[in-house]
């Protein structure tokens, strides 16, 4: 099996507080503290795998995703995504990467769904001869065909989220990064989206997703990394994680859920 993501010691530091222009002009020493959001994360994600990152708020999930999506430059560590170096091959990575990181706000509400996709198809360098057919196909898959020519401002949250995922599918990506893709969706819309993720895996695509929902992680992910304070504290299949907690705590015949693992 080939490797979709290989990260070694991925680290990201941010400055806490702010340094004013006046302080810069006066060349005052930089007294800002450094906050380590991601602390030496090693990741090995196989092609065709659905890999989940679970963790509490502020654990470093989104920062890790943003680094792998080439939006953030790591402070230390190395990573290859789809065979390209994260820093020197960023543009090559972006050609084959679909990402849902910023939610429904990242759409143009005064454009129709089709116009949004036409614009992003051009940005993704989709060949002009293929654009129309690809958009029709994606709209169909995401169940948006009947609303394709409506302004996005008239869409429900669930429809906008589906359109964001549709946009991520435009480059026919080998790898999809989904940052909490079902947040804010009603149960039906969330279920539809989860089914779509499983279809994507069946098509041979790799999916890296973060989520707060244990059931979602349990249902979707082949393997899960639990992160806390920027570090991976556990990594296994959902069943493996449950088994290890079961064995460690001596639960006897009591079933162990992924939530138990997460809280533990």
């Amino acid at each position, binding site marked *: 099996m080939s490797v979709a993501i290989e990260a070694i010691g991925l680290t990201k530091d*941010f*400055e806490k507080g702010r340094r004013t*222009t006046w302080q810069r002009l006066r060349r005052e020493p930089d007294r800002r503290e450094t906050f380590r959001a991601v602390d030496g994360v090693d990741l090995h994600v196989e092609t065709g795998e659905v890999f989940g990152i679970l963790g509490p708020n502020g654990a470093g999930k989104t*920062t890790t995703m*943003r680094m792998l*999506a*080439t*939006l*953030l*430059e790591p402070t230390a560590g190395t990573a290859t995504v789809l065979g390209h170096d994260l820093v020197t091959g960023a*543009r*090559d990575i*972006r*050609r084959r*990467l679909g*990402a849902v*990181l*910023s*939610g429904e*706000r*990242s*759409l*143009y509400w*005064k*454009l129709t769904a089709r*116009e949004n996709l*036409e*614009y*992003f*198809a*051009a*940005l*993704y*360098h989709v060949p*002009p001869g293929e654009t129309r057919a690809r958009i029709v196909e994606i709209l169909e898959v995401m169940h948006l065909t009947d609303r394709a020519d409506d302004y996005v401002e008239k869409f429900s949250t669930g429809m906008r989220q589906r359109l964001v995922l549709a*946009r991520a599918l435009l*480059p026919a990506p080998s790898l999809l990064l989904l940052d909490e893709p079902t947040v804010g969706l009603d149960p039906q819309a969330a279920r539809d989206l989860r089914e779509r993720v499983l279809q994507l895996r069946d098509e041979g695509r790799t999916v890296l997703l973060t989520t707060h929902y244990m059931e979602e992680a349990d249902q979707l992910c082949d393997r899960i990394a639990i992160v806390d304070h920027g570090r991976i504290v556990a990594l296994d299949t959902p069943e493996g994680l449950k088994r290890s907690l079961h064995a460690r705590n001596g639960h006897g015949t009591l079933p162990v859920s992924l939530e138990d693992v997460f809280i533990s």
Partner: protein
Amino acid sequence: MSLADVGADLRAFGAASRKEWRILRRYPGSLLSFIFWPIALPLAFVFQAQAFGGGREDTAAAFAARTGTNEVAGFLFIGWATYMWLSIILWGPGTALRTEQIRGSLEAIFLTPASRLVVLFGPAVSQLAWAAWIFVVVGVALWIGFGVTIGPLEALRAVGVVLVAAPALYAIGALFAAIVLRFGEVSSLVQGVRGLFTAVCGMSFPIVVLPDWAQTVALSLPPTYLIADLRSVMLAGAELGHVIGDLSILAGMGVVLTLLAIFAFRRTELHARRGGKLAQY
């Protein structure tokens, strides 16, 4: 970067312009301001000039000697139309970036393989349509209100001047965009630069009336040449060959400012990628 990439980026550039144009069209109310201001603003200065000149022949002759034209209204309308176009350009790339940042779409764009120049200049190019509209309104107002006609040949030469000046002006806009990415807000700086252009570049007066030091400042700024050359070709019947010296300076400024803008934008993008500022506003 391969030739295929360049072609794909050009298509992306066209798509960015189309997208912006579509959004603009969906706010038709803004069209009204683009009819009212290109007439109202210079008109106030025309009346002021008439009041100060007192309708005397010697004042008209003094104006012609300093400007090379008798057309006071044409002089002022062209000056202010250029000012309005400059405002659009100065705001254009920075505003486009800021709007994407506030809207939340900047990260989505930066996730694509398209060149960063697409997001910078694609929307700004669509605003050229508004600039063309301003000049059309001004041309019609001059013709109906003051009997000043600008023929197709003069208009064509003006387009030539605009094309030579465009790289320098868009590069200044891109420098503002770099500042937007670095600091998040740029309005006060744009207002300051716009004020400087108004004060020294000769929107409503010939720069020969300025003190020597101010003339030196004026001659270091691209809009001074643009305004002077537009007036020359549109009002004084000059051919492009007559203003070739100015156009060469404008082209040179364009090269230098474009290189500076690309350098500044790359630096600030790197800074934004290190600090996670693409999604912050």
